[in-house]
């Protein structure tokens, strides 16, 4: 159990870290096992995914012509 066991705090760190580096095999298995039983970390993972897509969209607005928003 100990090799693949991770607490929520550790799993969220890994979920964020895989945006920066490929996880090791053990880490990947640990994350997958944890997510299969933890709704909280699953929700967090969904939030991270949404943020990634939102950044892509923000970039698109930043770089291409768009009816510019009046704000700021």
């Amino acid at each position, binding site marked *: 159990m100990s090799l693949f066991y991770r*607490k929520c705090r550790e799993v969220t760190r890994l979920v964020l870290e895989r945006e920066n580096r490929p996880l090791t095999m053990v880490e990947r298995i640990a994350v997958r096992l944890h997510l299969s039983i933890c709704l909280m970390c699953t*929700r967090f993972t969904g*939030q991270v995914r949404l943020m990634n897509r*939102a950044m892509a969209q923000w970039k698109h607005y930043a770089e291409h012509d768009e009816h510019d928003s009046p704000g700021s």
Partner: protein
Amino acid sequence: MVNDFAQQLETLQPQLLRFARTQLRNEAWAEDAVSETVVAALEKPQSFAGQSQLKTWLVGILKHKVIDQLRRHKREATVLTTDDNEDLDDLLFAPDGHWREMPADWGNPDDVLRQRQFIDVMQTCLDGLPPTQARVFLAREWLELSSDEVCKELTITTTNLWVLLHRARLRLRECLQAGWFDAHPAVPTHATR
């Protein structure tokens, strides 16, 4: 014709400045990056063959000028403020490593991202990141530098970079929660409970 080009540049300048500010978080550096961009564009307008939108072409130049600024000011650009150093982990997690509170369901990304105001909130949240966190986060996300390149350009260690990116993403999450999702809770769909 040339005047027309110069005029178009002038029209786009405020937008360029806004993105330079978000990335560099320093008024003087941002202004330098934008003026260097405009000068470069005026010097070789022929290289803008109209193959893309003018803004896209300018942003391409701007990114290089922004990287130049980061390189030039790397020492100051990586100074950590108190805010940069603050770790949200202890607020999110109990000492036993469990969540203190259930993360909210943000719902279907397609529904959220369809709304233009959400991206405005995103912009506000990016501008609200602590300065050094913002610089490294946007260097990765907007300038699309690799982790290695960011470390090299700013002379920071990989560990430092990861800590900063970790904090930036948690901050952004908090800010989006407070700035958008608290007021726009997800419509419960399928069983997530």
